[in-house]
C-alpha cells in the first residue's frame, strides 16, 4: 500500500477540488495512550493525512511548542518501538489515511536504515520525513525505504534555489513538503501570497503535490494556504491544545480534535 495510499488520497481530493488538511502530533505526548486516542480520532475530525512525530532529545528545527511535546513524550518514557506500535494500532482502525512519520536522524540510525524502513512498512506507515537528513546523506536510507515501499519525503524551503530544487526532487515520492518560513516550527506566520510562486515552482519541477507547513496556526491562514497549495499542515497549534489541557488528558483529546475539525473545515471549504 504505502506510497500508493498517499497517491490515492491526493487523487481523491483533487477530484473533489479540495486541498488536504494535514495534522501533526507528537507520538507519546503527553503519553502513549492519550496520543493514541487523538490519533484514532483525527480522520473523523476531517484530517486527510497524519504526520506523527517521533520524539528526539535534540529537535534542532523545532520551536518551543514541539520541543516541549518531545520532552513530555520522552519524560513519559516513550520508546521508538511504541511509536511503531501506535501506528500499527491506528492502521487497524483506518486503512485509507496516509500516515507519515516525522523526526530526526539519530533514532533512525540507531535502528539501522533497513530495520527502520521495515518497521515503518510493517506498522502501516506510508512516508518518512527526517528533518536533518538532506539528499547528500540520504542514499542508504532511500535504498532501504524504496525496498520497503515507504516514501522518503523531502523539504523545500525559502532558501531553496532552482539548482537545489533539482537535487531535492530526486528520489522523492508522495509529496514535497514546502517549509513556508525560514525558521523553526510554530513561530513565524506564513504569508500565503508571498509563497504562491515558490509553491508553483516546486510543483512544476517535481510533478508531485506540494504540502505547506511550519507557519500555519489559524483557520484563516490554513484556508489561504489551501488556495495555493495541495495541502496545509498544522502542528504547533494542535500541540498547544495538549499543553493547555494538561493534566486533563481526556480534555486534551477533545480539544485537539475540536481544533482539528475547525481547521479541516477551513481547508476543505477554501476553494468553494
Amino acid at each position, binding site marked *: 500500500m504505502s506510497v500508493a495510499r498517499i497517491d490515492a488520497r491526493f487523487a481523491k481530493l483533487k477530484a473533489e477540488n479540495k486541498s488536504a488538511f494535514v495534522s501533526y502530533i507528537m507520538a507519546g505526548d503527553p503519553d502513549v495512550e492519550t496520543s493514541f486516542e487523538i490519533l484514532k480520532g483525527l480522520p473523523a475530525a476531517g484530517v486527510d493525512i497524519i504526520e506523527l512525530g517521533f520524539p528526539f*532529545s535534540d529537535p*534542532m*528545527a523545532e520551536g518551543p511548542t514541539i520541543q516541549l511535546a518531545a520532552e513530555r513524550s520522552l519524560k513519559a518514557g516513550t520508546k521508538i518501538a511504541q511509536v511503531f506500535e501506535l501506528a500499527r494500532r491506528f492502521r487497524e482502525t483506518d486503512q485509507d489515511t496516509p500516515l507519515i512519520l516525522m523526526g530526526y536522524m539519530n*533514532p533512525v540510525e540507531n535502528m539501522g536504515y533497513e530495520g527502520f524502513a521495515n518497521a515503518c512498512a510493517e506498522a502501516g506507515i506510508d512516508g518518512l520525513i527526517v528533518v*536533518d537528513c538532506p539528499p547528500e546523506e540520504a542514499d542508504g536510507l532511500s535504498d532501504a525505504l524504496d525496498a520497503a515501499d515507504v516514501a522518503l519525503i523531502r*523539504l523545500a524551503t525559502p532558501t531553496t*534555489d532552482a539548482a537545489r530544487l533539482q537535487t531535492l526532487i530526486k528520489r522523492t515520492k508522495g509529496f514535497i513538503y514546502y517549509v513556508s518560513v*525560514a525558521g523553526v516550527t510554530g513561530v513565524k506566520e506564513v504569508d500565503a501570497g508571498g509563497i504562491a510562486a515558490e509553491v508553483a515552482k516546486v510543483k512544476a519541477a517535481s510533478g508531485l503535490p506540494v504540502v505547506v507547513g511550519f507557519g500555519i496556526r489559524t483557520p484563516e491562514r490554513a484556508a489561504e494556504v489551501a488556495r495555493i497549495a495541495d495541502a496545509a499542515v498544522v502542528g504547533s497549534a494542535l500541540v498547544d491544545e495538549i499543553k493547555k489541557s494538561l493534566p486533563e488528558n481526556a480534555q486534551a483529546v477533545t480539544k485537539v480534535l475540536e481544533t482539528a475539525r475547525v481547521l479541516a473545515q477551513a481547508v476543505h471549504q477554501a476553494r468553494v
Partner: protein
Amino acid sequence: MTDTHSIPNHYDMPDAKGRFGDFGGLYVPETLMPLVLELNEAWEDAKKDEAFWAEFHSLLKYFVGRPSPLYYAERLTQHFGGAKIYFKREELNHTGAHKINNCIGQILLAKRMGRKRIIAETGAGQHGVASATVCARFDLPCIVYMGALDVERQKPNVFRMNLLGAEVRPVTNGNGTLKDAMNEALRDWVTNVHDTYYMIGTAAGMHPYPVMVRDFQSVIGKETKEQILELEGRLPDAVIAAVGGGSNAIGLFHPFIDDDSVKIVGVEAAGHGLEVYNGHAASLNGGRPGVLHGNRTYLLQDDDGQILEGHSISAGLDYPGIGPEHAHLFDTGRARYVTATDKEALEAFQLTSKLEGIIPALESSHAIARVGDLAKEVGKGGIVVLNLSGRGDKDIFTVANALGQQMGGL
C-alpha cells in the same frame, strides 16, 4: 606563512563530502543546506588566498600573542620520573585559551562573506568570551547562547562577554547546558539565514566546521613541531591533549598524524567514572556512533538513540559528542583515547599549580592527569608534549566548591 592550510603527505581527510572515514558529513535541516554549502565554498576560496592567511597570522601574532611558548615542565617531569614533559602554553594566549585561534579565523571568514551578525554557543564561556572578543575587535554584533545552568555556574565569563559588548542569551530548554545552547544557536541560524554567521567553537558539527576549525587550530601543532626541533633537535615521542569536542587536541595532533614515531593520546572526561550510567562525558570510550548537530560521530546515547547529557566537572568537556576526526583516528587506531575522572583532574589541577606555578584549566587538567602514565611509558630520555589548552582562573569557583572550600564574597 601560507602553509597553515597545507595537507600532510599521506593523511588527506576529510573527503569532498566532509567525511573522515565513516564520520563527519552534513546532517542539517534543508533550510540551512544552501548556507552550509555557501560557507564551504567561501572557506575553500579563503583557504587559497594568501592575503587571508597573512591577516590571520598577523592577528595571531599581534592580537593573540603567538607563538605560544613550548615550556619544559621540569618539576612535573621530576615528579613523574619518566620522559621530559613539555607544555604547549596555549593558556598564555589572549583570552586565556586556544579558543581564540579559531575565532580569529572565523571572524575573518565572516567578514569576507559580508555577514552582519555573529552567533555562537558556549559551555564554560571560553568560546563565548573569544567570540565576543573578536566581534568587539571587528565591530560586529555578537549573540552568545549559553545554557541557563552554565550562566549560573560561570558568572565571571558572562560578565566578561557583556563587557565586550556581546549579548548572552540563557537557554532553558533541555537541561540548560552546552548541547542545548548549540541547539538554540542552530535554531537562531535557521531563522536568520540571510545575515548571520554561526561561529562554532569546536572541531565538530557539520562540514566544513570540523576541517575548518582544525585548520585554524593546527597552528598549535605546527608551532610545536618547529619549537621542539629547535629545543631538542627531534620530534617528540608522544603528544597528549584533553578532548571534549576536540579542537585543542586536533590542533596539536593534526600536524603529527603522518609522523608514525609520534604517539597520539587524547584524554576524555570520565566524570564520576565510566561505569556510572550518564555520569561521564567520554563519547569514544563510553558511547557509540550516531548523528547529532550535523555530523556522524561517537555519541553518548541511550538504547533508543536519545542523547544523554553526560557529566564532567569541566564545563568545556561536558558535551555528549566529539569531533568526527577524533572518531576516525580512534577507529583507525592512529590515536589512542584514555580517560581521567573528575577526581583525577582535580588532583592534577592542584599538582600543577603547586609544582609548576601554573593554574591549568580543568579541561587541560584531564590531560595532565594522564601525562604521568604516558611519561613513564615513553621512559627516561623520551619527550612528551602536552597541550596546556587554557588557564584555570575561570575554574577556581568550581574547584573550591569541589574541595569543600568557601570563596566568600568573590
